[in-house]
């Protein structure tokens, strides 16, 4: 918001803003990290190519700017790739020719003059027919590249081409892609400016200066649409985010930077663009840090190279190689002022204007000039004489160019604020821990604590007593130091933790835990507590987390309505382990007597029937009453055979048959037996009646 106003007051406001708002990212010039990132992003595929012509151009151009030796080895393959396209200019699109010519230009491929003549004719033909901005851009760009390679590349009618491109401009500094489209675009503005710059340098005669003036005016208007972050970063983005045409801020800003700096380099006179915006754009591209994609990398590196050499204003970047200064190692406050690619700045002075404390309190406002180390190109200042204690500070630097005429060439941004940390060791001493009685206040047992190493004190207390802990922290300059983190942690064995901030006074840090007031907070949990003391601060080099020892706490029984301790998270591993195996316990088979015993009893059970047989023999039984007549004899035989069959059926029932088959057979046999039995018995009874009557 503030950044849009180009007034110096706004600049100051911006600096103040930057002092309070932490920068999004540290800005430092292009370094070797960029080179290795670029080499990684533009890794050629297995066959050594980068894909299409555009990607190949981006790769070789990035390598060229970064001075990577790698691109030399690619020359043969890429040149051949470009030459294939150039060989048949009539059938190729202007875009392909444009990229192919530029690849040849970057790599210095040897291309026949005849081939280029054909390309020039083709591009001129395209310019004549088209009304599309991109076609103009590709054709003019192609011609310009051919001209730069030392060939004759005349633009047939520069004046009308210039007008045709200018006709696409809009009143707000944006451009349209062609005469039919109503949508204007910032990206197109950059393309158009680059194309116009190409037309101007291709033209033999001077282009109408009034037209140049109009375009310059457009550029100023275009810079009015620039967007900004709070930290002084400026970038271009499309006004209307349309999914198909949207390029993203990096591509859009890169296009504008390319266009504006190309245009500025071919026209005479200054462009009226505020230095802070140029610097802001440089900060934007550097703020990307290491780019993630090849396209971003190309845009970042090429834009920065245009900014490095532009004729409007060359941004100078003030960067601190380190923002953390240690008092122990007597670090020097080092400041580098370089161009975006890290090359040396013109002679200038860097002053330390002010040092502000974390609460914006002015620590020192003496203007100190930093000394210059010519060898390493670093401005430096010893910290020790400044008498600054450890802590976090905002340091305001001022860049003063030594030569007056440089002020129209370089954009320095005037004053810039950097947040720095000054760190040092903190002296920890007078550590004491003890238990005191509540009423008397008399300390029973005070133990000295050496907080430089883990200690194992063992204390015990009940709810009527107090725990006291005190210690002192002093900075190297002898002041009391108040770190951000001074925690006393009591950890019960059931993993319930209690944290206390140890309050610091002017003299010492002291905490008194009155357990009577804390029983509720401690959930009435008696038992062993582990004591831990954590002291840490960003400026403290010896931050520590010490185990102090144990406290055996004896608290009263919890009343019924006492709060329950919070649930503790369970170990995830215990939840997922395999379960214990379960195997079924089968019913035990019934106990049986040994087989021999059963057999012996079997024989025993046979004895009565043997006795029965012997008895019958001794009685002298006979079967003389058996019917002698054939009819009754047959029935009697059948009757006994039937009884025998029934008995046999019983044996079979035991051996193999089941109940149903047995009953079935038994049914038949029973009917049969009733019939033959009746005949036999009635015969026998009639025979015996006859005998009795006889």
């Amino acid at each position, binding site marked *: 918001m503030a950044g849009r106003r180009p007034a110096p007051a706004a600049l100051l406001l911006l600096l103040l803003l930057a002092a309070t708002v932490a920068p999004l*990212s540290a800005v430092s010039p292009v370094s070797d*990290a960029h080179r290795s990132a670029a080499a990684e992003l533009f890794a050629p595929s297995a066959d050594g190519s980068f894909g299409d012509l555009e990607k190949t151009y981006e790769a070789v151009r990035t390598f060229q700017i970064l001075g990577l030796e790698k691109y030399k080895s690619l020359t043969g393959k890429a040149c051949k790739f470009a030459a294939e396209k150039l060989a048949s200019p009539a059938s190729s699109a202007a875009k392909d020719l444009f990229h192919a010519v530029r690849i040849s230009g970057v790599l210095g491929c040897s291309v026949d003059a005849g081939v280029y003549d054909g390309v020039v004719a083709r591009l001129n033909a395209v310019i004549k027919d088209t009304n599309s901005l991109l076609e103009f851009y590709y054709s003019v760009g192609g011609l310009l590249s051919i001209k730069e390679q030392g060939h004759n590349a005349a633009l047939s009618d520069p004046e009308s081409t210039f007008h045709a491109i200018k006709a696409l401009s809009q009143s707000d500094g944006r451009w349209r892609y062609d005469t039919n489209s109503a949508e204007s675009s910032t990206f197109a503005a950059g393309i158009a400016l680059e194309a116009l710059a190409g037309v101007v340098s291709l033209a033999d005669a001077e282009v109408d200066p009034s037209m140049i003036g109009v375009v310059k005016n457009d550029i100023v208007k275009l810079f009015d649409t620039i967007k900004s972050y709070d930290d002084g970063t400026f970038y271009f983005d499309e006004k209307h*985010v349309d999914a198909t045409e*949207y390029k*993203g*801020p990096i591509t859009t800003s890169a296009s504008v930077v390319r266009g504006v700096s190309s245009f500025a380099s071919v026209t005479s006179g200054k462009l009226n663009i505020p230095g802070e915006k140029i610097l802001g754009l440089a900060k934007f591209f550097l703020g*990307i*840090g*290491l780019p*993630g*994609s090849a396209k*971003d990398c190309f845009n970042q590196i090429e834009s920065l190279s245009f900014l490095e050499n532009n004729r409007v204003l060359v941004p100078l970047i003030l960067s601190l190689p380190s*923002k*953390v200064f240690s008092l122990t190692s007597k670090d020097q406050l080092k400041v580098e002022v370089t161009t975006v690619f890290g090359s040396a700045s013109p002679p200038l002075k860097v002053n330390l204007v002010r040092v502000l404390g974390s609460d914006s309190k002015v620590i020192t406002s003496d203007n100190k000039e930093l000394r210059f180390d010519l060898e390493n190109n670093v401005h430096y200042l010893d910290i020790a004489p400044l008498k600054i204690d450890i802590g*976090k500070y905002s340091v305001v630097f001022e860049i003063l160019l030594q030569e007056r005429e440089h002020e129209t060439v370089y954009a320095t941004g005037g004053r810039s604020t950097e*947040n*720095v940390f000054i*760190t040092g060791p903190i002296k920890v001493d007078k550590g004491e821990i003890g238990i005191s009685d509540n009423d008397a206040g008399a300390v029973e047992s005070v133990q000295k604590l050496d907080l430089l190493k883990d200690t194992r004190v063992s204390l015990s207390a009940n709810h009527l007593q107090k725990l006291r802990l005190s210690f002192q922290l002093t900075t190297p300059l002898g002041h009391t130091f*108040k770190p*951000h*983190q001074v*925690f006393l*942690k009591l950890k019960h064995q059931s993993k319930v*933790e209690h*944290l206390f*901030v140890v309050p610091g006074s002017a003299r010492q840090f002291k905490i008194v835990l009155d357990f009577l007031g804390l029983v509720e907070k401690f959930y009435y949990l008696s038992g062993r507590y582990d004591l*831990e003391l954590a002291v*840490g601060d*960003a400026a403290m080099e010896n*931050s520590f987390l010490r185990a102090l020892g144990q406290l055996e706490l004896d608290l009263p029984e919890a009343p019924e309505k006492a709060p329950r301790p919070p*649930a503790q998270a*369970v170990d995830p*591993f215990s*939840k*997922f*382990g*395999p*379960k214990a*195996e*379960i*195997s079924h316990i089968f019913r035990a088979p019934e106990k049986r007597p040994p*087989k021999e*015993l*059963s057999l012996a009893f079997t024989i*025993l*059970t*046979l004895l*009565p*029937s043997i006795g*029965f047989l012997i008895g*019958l023999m001794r009685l002298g*039984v006979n*079967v*003389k*009453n058996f019917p002698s007549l054939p009819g009754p004899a047959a029935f009697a035989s059948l009757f*006994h055979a039937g*009884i025998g069959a029934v*008995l046999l059926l*019983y044996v079979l029932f035991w051996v193999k048959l089941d109940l149903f088959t047995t009953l079935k057979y038994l049914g038949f046999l029973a009917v049969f037996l009733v019939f033959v039995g009746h005949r*036999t018995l009635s015969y026998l009874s009639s025979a015996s009646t006859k005998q009795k009557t006889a």
Partner: protein
Amino acid sequence: MVAPRHLAALLLLLLAVATVAGEDEGPRGRRLLVLLDDLSVRSSHSAFFGSLQARGFDLDFRLADDPKLSLHRYGQYLYDGLVLFAPSTPRFGGSVDQNAVLEFIDAGHDMILAADSTASDLIRGIATECGVDFDEDQEAMVIDHINYAVMDVEGDHTLIAGDDLIQSDVILGSKKIEAPILFRGIGHAANPSNGLVLKVLSASPSAYSANPKTKLGSPPSLTGSAISLVSVMQARNNARVLISGSLDLFSNRFLKSGVQKVGSKTRHERAGNEQFVTETSKWVFHMRGHLKAVSVKHHKVGETNEPGMYRINDDLEYSVEIYEWSGTSWKPYVADDVQVQFYMMSPYVLKTLSTDKKGLYSTSFKVPDVYGVFQFKVEYQRLGYTCLSFTKQIPVRPYRHNEYERFIASAYPYYTASFSTMGAFFMFSFVYLYHK
């Protein structure tokens, strides 16, 4: 009534298995919606997005307040996963809101959510619903004065070098992450009552969550290793959610930067972030740790056909094939802790299956001497793996009347007694009828 429904379900299951086997398709689709609150995130985090695209995901980048935003159309979800890199968005555009995101997860989809110190109530709300509570202090960041990453340009110790990782090959990949992981953002706590959340990257005991710019008055709500920096949640429907308190964790800057932990001599050329985000995103989008079970079989020992019913005391064999999705194909899953239960109200038999290392798990056991309707039940829940749970019902009957033992030696005296009586009766019938 029941049988045809079972048959239909079985047919459907078979059909599903057949299609999976036929096309060798993964368990999840590849359409991801990436919601950003600033399109510059697309380029500042492009390495992470690039690694997703290289793995075949189809990313759809949208601004979180895009008015045309929609997760589903005509009842069908348009995406299979969500990458929510829009920490400061107060509300989503279009038809998407907190409930829509939660329903998306309830429908079994995955999500990566990254917040930072600008996290809005919406993002915090979604995280809370996933069992993760971000520090309520809006200004708080995780600070660690003992385990920070040394950076010349960073002095406030909010750049954490985290190395307290969960011990799980399935979530973090089999290759150990050597370098510490750079983290700058807000801490959260996993809700102890939620058993589905796991802390993947925890803070060290000396960390605390507070506003680095102001003095501390009261103790911070989150301290020590209770702070989780990155958590994952696997829901009961196997939807996976990763929640990170740092959006920068995924950024190119952290992925490409070197790291040196304070007090440590070794400087790592690359922070562990690249490996960490690649491996965890593989896990979240089901390129690892997704199990499927096929061809569940059981039969009597010595037979091959599956019976309709077992008799008590039968010996049976049970086998199942388990495969894990590797991102490109189903690979045999090898473990030694897959267990089967023979279950009726409670497990009667619980046995660990033995594996042939080619995905086949089998075991054999004797059917208990209790009859009723049993189930073969596999409930496989392992850290990081999707939950496998399938049952197969089978009745168990007692012996039939003729299946008992017929000739018991100890009963011979009784038999002999009866039969000798019968023989004597036979003889006696002659004597009684025909004696003279």
